[in-house]
């Protein structure tokens, strides 16, 4: 955690409610998100037990498996789930436009957004994707055609979700933690009910008191995918041993409905926060990825294999790191409260411009011609820990490259190096400015060889993945 977040944790306890960690919402929020709350049978890796799913508070669909041990019933469940999720995704995937950029590319007009309660829900989506994407739709153990498609789309969404800033599949507790700091410790903060108790406590109650109540599995059943062992023992097991579909259905509804309400309450809370400036740009990347994946599936491309090759894995890791860095930086550029977090860590400072030498010209080392290199002095009371030569950017003029010349007590001198186009402005005396080492355009991908040029030290070029009958008929027992 950062010092600011620790500060806010203590402040939350002091004030009796969660503290804002952002002034804007950094994730795009769809007008029609699909809330998906899966439950699985305890002791099994990916045996679905039930799910509540739908695109509106009043539009909850409850899916359940009467006998979670039955392989056929699992695939019936998956087929039902596919009937809901696949059309929801395809509706967005089907509508494309061509970008008006220099090299034109396809992107969807909008994209799906699936919201699950917590990181456990994300991991379960990955497993659903893994367990269904290879299934054959004919021959022995055939499944409904939508099932492998569900697997492919969920696999795609899960892979995207690992890139910071992607918003097509999100865990609500992560999203809330990004925007509010509660008085809960880390391990307790993945409890959706507890988190909301701090963010939006009932009248006359502190977050602490409300969270104590929310912790009781009888009042707030776990948000999945794992169920409450007490529920398993006292309710679920008798209903599976002596089947009573109607009562089972009601029991499952009772476990899911409280979380359903919480999810939509969280959506409302997030909606009330204004969009961050760069959220649309990130959503556009999601829309582009969606169009690409849709074309890939439509043209008969294969589902991703079970394992990444060494180069693909390295490439992916580098991509994840880059996305994380540029997401962090963009957030700070959009949101002074996030920037404050970096200021507290010494990665940024804010101050007031004292002087601007706009006409300064120098001959840069190794060059012959005079060029404009304005100098700006800034008075600040932030501790500045940058060394001369450090490249800095400002959210107010993100295109203007600057370099730190000197720090003298509380006076910082910067030289502006680039981005002085005709309509660009220079900082002016009296203006409050912020400079940081963060760079939203940073985090570029390092050069990695193409997959076909995998060095022999990494096993040479991997054979192309071809689905096998074994994959397609993998037993589910």
């Amino acid at each position, binding site marked *: 955690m950062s*010092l600011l977040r620790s500060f806010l944790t*203590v402040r939350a*306890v002091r004030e009796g409610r969660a503290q804002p960690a952002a002034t804007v919402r950094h994730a795009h929020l769809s007008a029609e998100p699909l809330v998906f709350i899966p439950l699985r049978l*305890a002791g099994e890796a990916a045996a679905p037990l039930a799910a509540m799913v739908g695109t509106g508070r009043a539009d909850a669909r409850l899916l359940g498996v009467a006998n979670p041990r039955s392989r056929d019933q699992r695939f019936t469940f998956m087929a039902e789930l596919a009937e809901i999720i696949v059309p929801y995704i395809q509706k967005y995937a089907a509508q494309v436009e061509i970008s008006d950029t220099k090299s034109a590319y396809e992107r969807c007009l909008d994209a799906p957004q699936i919201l699950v309660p917590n990181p456990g829900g994300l991991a379960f989506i990955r497993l659903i994707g893994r367990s269904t994407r290879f299934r054959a739709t004919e021959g022995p153990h055939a499944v409904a055609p939508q099932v492998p498609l569900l697997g492919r789309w969920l696999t795609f969404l899960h892979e995207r979700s690992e890139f910071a800033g992607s918003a097509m599949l999100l865990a609500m507790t992560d999203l809330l933690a990004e925007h509010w700091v509660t008085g809960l*410790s880390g*391990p307790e903060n993945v409890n959706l009910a507890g988190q909301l108790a701090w963010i939006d406590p009932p009248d006359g109650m502190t977050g602490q008191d409300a969270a104590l109540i929310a912790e009781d599995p009888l009042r707030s059943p776990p948000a999945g995918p794992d169920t409450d062992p007490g529920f398993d023992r006292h309710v679920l*097991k008798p209903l599976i041993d002596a089947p009573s579909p109607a009562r089972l259905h009601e029991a499952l509804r009772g476990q899911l409905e409280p979380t359903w309400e919480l999810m939509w309450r969280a959506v409302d809370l997030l909606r009330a926060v204004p969009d961050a400036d760069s959220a649309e740009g990130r959503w556009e990347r999601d829309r582009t990825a969606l169009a690409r994946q849709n074309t890939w599936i439509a043209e008969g491309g294969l589902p991703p294999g079970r394992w990444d090759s060494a180069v693909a894995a390295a490439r992916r890791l580098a991509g994840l790191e880059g996305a994380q860095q540029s997401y962090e930086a963009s957030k700070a550029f959009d949101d002074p409260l996030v920037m404050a977090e970096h200021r507290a860590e010494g990665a940024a400072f804010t101050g007031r411009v004292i002087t601007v030498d706009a006409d300064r010209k120098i001959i840069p080392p190794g060059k012959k011609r005079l060029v404009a290199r304005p100098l700006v002095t800034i008075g600040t009371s932030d501790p500045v820990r940058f060394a001369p030569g450090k490249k800095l950017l400002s959210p107010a003029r993100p295109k203007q490259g600057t370099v730190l010349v000197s720090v003298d007590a509380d006076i910082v001198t910067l030289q502006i190096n680039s981005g002085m186009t005709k309509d660009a402005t220079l900082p002016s005396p009296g203006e409050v400015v912020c400079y940081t080492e963060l760079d939203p355009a940073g985090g570029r991908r390092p050069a990695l060889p193409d997959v076909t040029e995998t060095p022999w030290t990494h096993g040479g070029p991997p054979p192309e993945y071809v689905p096998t009958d074994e994959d397609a008929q993998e037993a589910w027992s």
Partner: protein
Amino acid sequence: MSRLDAIRGRSLPVDHDARRIAALAANPACDRRAVLDAAGIDKAKTVEHLGFPTRFGQSPFAVSRTQEFRATVKAHGGAHILRLLREVLGLSVEEAGYHDVGDVGADAGHGVRYRHTMAVLKSAAENPADAATLVDHPLLKLGVAGYDVYLEPDVIAFQVDRRFHVVAIKSFAIIDGQADSGKVSAAAREAAVYVHAMRDLFAQLGLDPERVSHDVVLICPKDFMNFPTACLVDVRLQLEALKRQLQRLAKIDTLLDRLPPGLSLDLQLDGETPTRPVPELSAALSSIPARYAPECLSACEMAYFCRDEARACGSLEALGRTVRDDLGGVASLPVAMDLIAGSGVPSAEHAAIAERLGFVRRIFDEVVA
């Protein structure tokens, strides 16, 4: 050891299983846990009597899944086990002798079964180098705080080439070569207890303890099937942590010396029902220093009691170690609240963090206002 018995009172000591012993290492700095465990106190019963939940229940589905999977693995004289051992240990053994030490009869006393285990392991150890042996349900013994604790591991000891491996069977899946890391490390901690106990036993038999490998064979279901797969897990780190904790428990006397004389945690059971007045029991527990941190929630039955107490006495660590560390090691929540609010004059030792927090407060107010 009569002091520990006196603390426990009239209740019988609870049996330790490897899980409990493994969990000892989870919060090594906590005296309370050390005393409760050394005295064999039933923590779950205690904390429930105090009116707090334990939340350590296991789903009946998880329990039966585990049993089913174990049965599959052990079917046909351990054919799967042998296949997997060949794979992960790179062996060429075709067959192995199979001894089920549990066969002595469940009603045989621990002592009898332990001696039987010793005899079987000894003869396996003295086997010619090429004969492989599987020893199922070995009964092991461990010294915990001066007590002999018997462990009934559902593991198998496998001997070949003069080396022994502990084989643990778990029912969480390894999917495409990956398993839940939390579950793997829990399994590793548990298996380390068995390795440790087996090495102890070897030492007693005058054999080289190092013949028990620190590489444990973990057998789990593969992907979404009921089909077993296996991997090797190195438990050296877990062994070190366990050893430290056991050494600490062995010196429990110094810990007991610091406790109030006459301390009793007796539940005063009437049949199965505790009758000890709650405030009395609660005060008695509170007289043993604890070290609550949020990690306790998943490691110790006492967690909700200790959390309540930690909150009531304003522990900053109850919010997590990172918060405490970020705030320069301040221990008290009220002090931390003063520091973040800038109220009062910070003590000299807090001057530096007070200044940093003052800066954070200023920029936070500046942005949020």
